[in-house]
């Protein structure tokens, strides 16, 4: 990609993000209701795990770890999530993709703009909700003060979000071959919700699952970014960072491969 192309793509992306933000601002209640639903699952987990610990449960993590994890998890899940698959599949099925194929920029720019702008708007709504959630448990929340940890957290978040976006593009691109990818997308979301650590921390899952949980990709979208803040020693994160980078690279290559192969099959319905 030349410097000119990159500049043009950047300019288009900025315009699209601005447009998306204006549109989202029209649907304020949509945002509030959506973020309330995002906070509900960790809130239930938080109450039930703390209640179980008060009833004598002995999980392999401390109460402080569990509380901090479950307060942060909704924020991290939202920031690394992606929802483009069904829209991409629809645009392939109905031929709306044509409009983007003839433009001098990436076909996925609109999806990226939608992802970024919606996350900015959601962040503004979700942060106060997470703060309200954190207030009753503030004594049990332990966050690092070192800025290096927060930079590492930011890096892990960006990598996790990139990986999930690529997975989403792969699932959406299956519409080049199949009429309906809704069930496949449902399976992906199901696997992601459980294996990412969005429901419960991966560290409380049975020890026998450990080797599998360490190599599967979804954990590097939610559990690992939180781990960059909660791990007692930063030197233990090296392997995780390397595995996460490998998954991101693999996801990028796979998304590109599936997209290019799919485009060859695309017959442009509606053109």
């Amino acid at each position, binding site marked *: 990609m030349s410097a000119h192309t990159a500049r043009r793509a950047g300019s288009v992306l900025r315009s699209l993000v601005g447009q998306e933000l204006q549109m989202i601002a029209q649907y304020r209640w949509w945002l509030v209701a959506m973020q309330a*639903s995002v906070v509900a*699952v960790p809130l*239930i987990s938080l109450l*039930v795990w703390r209640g*179980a610990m008060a009833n004598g*449960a002995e999980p392999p993590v401390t109460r402080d770890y569990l509380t901090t994890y479950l307060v942060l998890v909704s924020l991290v899940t939202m920031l690394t999530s992606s929802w483009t698959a069904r829209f991409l599949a629809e645009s392939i099925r109905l031929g709306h993709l044509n409009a983007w194929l003839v433009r001098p920029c990436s076909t996925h720019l609109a999806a990226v703009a939608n992802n970024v702008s919606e996350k900015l708007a959601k962040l503004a709504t979700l942060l106060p909700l997470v703060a309200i959630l954190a207030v009753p448990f503030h004594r049990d929340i332990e966050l690092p003060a070192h800025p290096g940890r927060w930079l590492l957290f930011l890096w892990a978040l960006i990598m996790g979000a990139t990986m999930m976006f690529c997975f989403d593009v792969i699932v959406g691109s299956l519409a080049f071959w199949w009429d309906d990818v809704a069930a496949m997308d449902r399976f992906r979301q199901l696997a992601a919700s459980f294996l990412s650590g969005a429901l*419960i921390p991966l560290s409380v899952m049975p020890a026998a699952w450990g080797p599998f949980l360490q190599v599967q990709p979804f954990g590097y979208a939610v559990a690992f970014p939180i781990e960059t803040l909660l791990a007692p020693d930063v030197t233990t994160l090296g392997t995780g960072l390397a595995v996460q980078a490998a998954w991101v690279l693999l996801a990028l290559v796979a998304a590109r491969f599936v997209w290019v192969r799919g485009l060859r099959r695309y017959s442009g319905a509606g053109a």
Partner: protein
Amino acid sequence: MNARTARVTILVWLNLFRQAVMRDLQFRSQAWLHLFAGIGELIVGILPVLILTTYVRTDSARPEAAVLTVGVFAITTGLMDCFVTPGLRRFDSAIRKGELDLALVRPVPTFFYAVLRWIQPTELGRCVSGTAILVVAASTFDLGLGPEGVLAMIAWAFAGTIAYCAFWADLTLLAFWVRSIEPVNDLAAAWRGAGQYPRQFFPRTMQIVLVSFAPAALIGSFPAEQLLDPTAGLVLAPAVVLVSCSLTALIWQFGLVRYNSASS
């Protein structure tokens, strides 16, 4: 509602159900995938509960109660997702696009046609899985369940399902007042998850909320408790149904007055 309207309503519903089954038979591969995804969702819901239960070693948290809760929860949510929630998820869009007009002019109750006409038969797969869980749990833990417990469980699961559907509908009906409130469906679905955990793990205030205002416990843990120890009076179950349905009917009436038909 007079006898003729009731008869027409039942006939329409039967035709709608037949139509839904025919649709799933037409799109067989998708129907199978949705069936497996529904069972997968059940498994993903069960695992956190079972993992939590393995760490609790006190008498107050009996593992059989946790497994029975999951079984009851699977049956009630399977019924909800087959018959009620697909329509509730479409309600916001129906209001915004004026599709409610089509329901208003039909010779059947509008709420019925607007909400209960979308049916997803594949979700009933979860009811089968839930029943299997209950049967296996009863024999594994040698529970020796009596007819009184089974009756109490069925009555409360039925009442709880209606009460939670009514609560979900109350949230969805906000669409009459607030534009684009569709994600309240995700909120109701997320909150529903609280019903699959044993009730005693929650703080006292939360336990009260879960059996009253937002009755998630009534579709899982509470009926399961009745199966083991039928203590709550069955006479309360119709009262729960009556109160929750009356509130929904009231909100529906107020909302319908505000509806100004986006399409006309």
